[in-house]
């Protein structure tokens, strides 16, 4: 390929790739992860297609992006976890390994090889640490870049949405929340990310974005979204006696939290 012989053209090709992928991801429904009193919660809204998955006994993931790419990444994570879990032991499977040795390199390779198609997806993974009360979260970007956080993690279609959601979550001491309050906060953080993802014009300065986000009508965004989308949520629940801590929340657990928004009248009516 001629293109690859010239450094400038290569950089240009990478930039084009970024534009293309970010354009595809921009409208994706965010995923929110946070710790709560009994473990970790992952939440998103969607049109019925599953977007939050069990990876291993104490590891779960959610993603934004192309369904087939998400599926490939999910399977890669599960394969790696189970090979380690079998060859060593269940306790040896960690999220750090899955991201550092599995998803990160795979996504970077696909992104860097200009002749291959990249993964059009961003992934949020969460792990319940054992023993202890901590959780570990990783966001992995389409180019293989990853970020480790504890307590909270948020992933939208674009980095600005991540920022808005992270700020929203960071204000709360989520580790003290019960499940219902954690769900409520996650929903509102999701709506803040949704708001950022749908901005017609992105402020140039982060501080301007923060200011606009503080004034955003998060409740209104959430109410609109709940009109057409379904809430999907799962927990890694520490108090579960089984080895396997992953549990998808039933609609009866979610319904009381969203009814407050569904019932409320739009402002100005």
């Amino acid at each position, binding site marked *: 390929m001629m293109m690859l012989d010239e450094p400038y053209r290569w950089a240009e090709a990478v930039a084009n790739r970024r534009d293309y992928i970010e354009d595809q991801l921009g409208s994706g429904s965010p995923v929110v992860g946070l710790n709560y009193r009994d473990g970790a919660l992952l939440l998103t809204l969607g049109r019925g297609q*599953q977007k939050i*998955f*069990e*990876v*291993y006994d104490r590891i779960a993931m959610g993603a934004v992006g192309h369904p087939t790419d998400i599926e*490939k990444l999910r*399977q890669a994570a*599960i*394969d790696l976890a*189970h*090979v380690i*879990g*079998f*060859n060593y032991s269940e306790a040896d499977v960690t999220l750090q390994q899955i991201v550092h040795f599995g998803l990160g390199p795979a996504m970077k390779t696909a992104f860097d090889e200009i002749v291959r198609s990249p993964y059009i997806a961003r992934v949020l993974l969460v792990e319940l640490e054992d023993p202890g009360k901590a959780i570990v979260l990783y966001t992995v970007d389409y180019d293989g870049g990853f970020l480790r956080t504890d307590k909270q993690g948020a992933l939208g279609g674009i980095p600005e949405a991540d920022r808005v959601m992270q700020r929203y979550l960071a204000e709360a001491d989520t580790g003290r929340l019960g499940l219902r309050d954690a769900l409520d906060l996650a929903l509102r953080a999701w709506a803040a990310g949704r708001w950022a993802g749908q901005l017609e014009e992105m402020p140039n300065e982060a501080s301007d974005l923060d200011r606009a986000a503080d004034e955003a009508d998060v409740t209104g965004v959430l109410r609109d979204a709940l009109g057409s989308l379904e809430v999907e949520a799962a927990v890694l629940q520490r108090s579960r006696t*089984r080895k*396997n801590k992953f549990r998808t929340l039933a609609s009866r657990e979610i319904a009381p939290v969203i009814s407050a928004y569904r019932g409320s009248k739009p402002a100005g009516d």
Partner: protein
Amino acid sequence: MNQGNDLFDLLKESGYRFPGGALSGQTHSSEAAFPFRPTEGTTILALRYRDGVIIAGDRRATAGNAVITDRADKVIDIDEVSVMAISGSPAMAYEIARILGHSFQYHRRRQLQEMSLEAKLRRLSLLVRDNLPMAMQGIGAVIPIFATYDLRDGRGKIFFYDALGAQFEGTDFATTGSGSPGIRGAMYYLNRWGGRPFAELDQEEGVGLGLRLLFTASEHDAATGRYERAADVFPSVKTITAGGLQDVPVDDLRRIYGDFVEQGGPR
């Protein structure tokens, strides 16, 4: 990429070698190749009671005349509704149980659905067959009983295998191991003419019967252990019902053992 969606294939790709075929190059008879007898004596039994399946096994592991331990666990949890109970070579049986447990879990996560009962049985059958070279050496035969709760049919099921991997459903009960000849006839008799068939027993009666049968087996088979006060180790007894797999707690075993085995109790 792992197209077959099977953990066993994926493990082999990653360099894992199933030990069951490890000695397949050898053609010596078992006695010549392996002069001492491996551990294989035991008694395992499973019976269908009112709420599902009770599965019980003694705790003794032997090699020839030597008792290796009286604390071996031969009833192994595979998933939330299934157990595999083993007679035969513990090393191979544990490996097979481990592969099965991990495979079922892998399947559920990767395919986003539980593996069907038929497929689970087939996986076990293939592993037992893959283990044939070891079985032929006379040192690694594994003859499992697989017990599970079929959520579709709403009833407990018991399956037993031969060393070649052929699978049979034992409708009301199954027993295997060196002590099993001593109780198979008793089980048939009790189920048919004992007053009430096993399927009508409640959990307490079923567990009591299982403990009695294991005791009976140990009366005629030196390789089957029994409860001894000094060691205070009870047989492994588990129940499988619609609610899942559960160990019968030691306190319950102690009480039921007292009522049924020592006192002679009801029935």
